[in-house]
């Protein structure tokens, strides 16, 4: 169809195919965040992955194409890079139907969904999965076994498969998806965080390697503090340290990097005086 033949909504009447969505997925996996910058974050990436599809939809060289691209690239955009194609899929379903008339709705969709999707994506894919599988990989690695790393790779490949699947799902279901998805995702996030919390407890017990070295002499008797702690519960010192850092992180102006350096300096000092040692 030549670019002169336009529908009233500014599109060429092009129907988005499975191949188009596959191309979007390829671009998404290969370079969605390459253009990430401080000013507008993923704005140029959002357009880059759908650019070939938009060119087909509006026709090359048309003013509608320019308007659509401007509307997609100019505003700030930032969401979870694991869930961003949900927005993309719904967006394309709208634009295919309504053309440039739909751009206003699309802008609302983008700003409305990017926040909630970012928090769901960050907690599941940015925090829980890395906790569970990263910790597993780390734990096995410290015992000299790289197998855990490969388990993590396999899990991430499954996640990538899911990222591709959701583009198709979002395009087919359009706006309906938003309501059906949120309930199920909340229940899943909650259950997954049970496992996350459990694993952190287990990791505190196995991976913080410090014990009390000081054995003060009180009234002529040498007191083995570590042994006393062990009688209360094994691994009490690591638990206390994690509790201390947890409290520290709640202080105003505290950042994770500062906390790392505080622990570094404290350990060196207490280690040098022989109060704690590696264990």
């Amino acid at each position, binding site marked *: 169809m030549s670019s002169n033949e336009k529908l009233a909504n500014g599109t060429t009447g092009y129907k988005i195919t499975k191949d188009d969505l596959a191309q979007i997925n390829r671009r998404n996996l290969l370079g969605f965040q390459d253009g990430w*910058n401080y000013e507008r974050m993923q704005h140029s990436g959002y357009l880059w992955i759908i650019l070939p599809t938009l060119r087909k939809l509006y026709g090359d060289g048309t003013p509608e194409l320019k308007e659509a691209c401007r509307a997609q690239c100019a505003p700030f955009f930032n969401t979870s890079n694991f869930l961003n194609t949900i927005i993309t899929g719904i967006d394309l379903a709208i634009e295919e139907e309504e053309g440039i008339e739909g751009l206003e709705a699309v802008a609302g969709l983008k700003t409305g969904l990017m926040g909630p999707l970012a928090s769901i994506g960050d907690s599941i894919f940015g*925090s829980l999965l890395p906790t569970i599988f990263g910790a597993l990989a780390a734990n*096995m690695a410290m015992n000299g076994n790289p197998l855990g790393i490969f388990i993590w790779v396999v899990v991430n490949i499954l996640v990538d498969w899911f990222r591709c699947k959701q583009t198709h799902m979002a395009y087919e279901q359009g706006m309906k998806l938003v309501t059906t998805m949120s309930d199920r995702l909340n229940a899943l996030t909650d259950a997954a965080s049970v496992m996350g*919390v459990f694993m952190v407890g287990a990791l505190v017990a196995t991976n913080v390697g410090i014990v009390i070295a000081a054995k003060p002499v009180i009234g002529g008797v040498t007191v083995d503090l570590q042994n006393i702690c062990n009688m209360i519960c094994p*691994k009490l010192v690591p638990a206390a340290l994690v509790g201390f850092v947890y409290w520290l992180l709640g202080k105003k102006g505290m950042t994770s990097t500062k906390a790392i350096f505080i622990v570094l300096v404290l350990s060196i000092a207490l280690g040098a005086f022989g109060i704690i040692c590696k264990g």
Partner: protein
Amino acid sequence: MIAWWQILLLTLYAGYQILDELNWYTCAGSAVFSGMITGLIMGDLQTGLFIGGSMQLTVLGVGTFGGASRIDANSGTLVATAFAVGAGMNPETALAAIGVPVAAILVYTDIAGRFANTFFGHMCDADIEKMNWGAYNVHYLLGAVSWMLSRMIPVFLALAFGQGLVEGITTALNGDWKWLGDGLSVAGGALPAVGFAILLRYLPVKKHVAYLLLGFVVAALFGTAFTSIMNLNANIVAVNGALGKGAVDMVGMFNNMSMLAIAIIGFALSLLYYKNNQRPVAAAGAAEGDDDDEL
């Protein structure tokens, strides 16, 4: 010593890993993966796995929340492992003395890379006005170059020019500054605590505190039991050897506690929680039904 081809391979990996982490995400951008690759390139897989694993736990909770710059554990692990093997530093000391500082310094090159991309973002805007899509692709993908350089340049500089410095530090830490060396290796053991604490800040701990306690106690008890059995086993082997009873070799019969098994317990609890959480809707319906009967 670190050979030129090792520096080359490690620098290339440093560039690759950030694109992996940003886009297709196979976990090659993680600290533990970096430890494995660097260990392989340096010819000491065990040291790499140990430093990578420790660093992974240290930054466990430092996610990508809101796109903020974060401590670059991957590059820190890379440089620490390279020097631990190349300069013969103790892995725990390398983690605390090299890994953490390098990871913290690389936050600044990360910021520089993200700033450079602001410039490319504006070029993309201009390309849209001209509808020059070829130029848009180029300017967009140049962003990948600034991401890669933000890792490759500091890693290359550290590996190529840091050697003398690190060898000097290693000698000092084994000599006059031994107290500092010991302190740093204690720090290596303590650092994962920060990762766990950060993570607890992000997880709904108050709601699920029972599972935290359960995870801790299960792992603490089993961990202690397994360690004791392994010690016992080592002693039996030693006693047998001393008595000349020959090789009653029980090494390998007793392994470390399996973290995977502990994770399966966690998964089971999470599954139960999920199932129980779906029930209230049905239960509430049934309860209403009962009430009707009574009335």
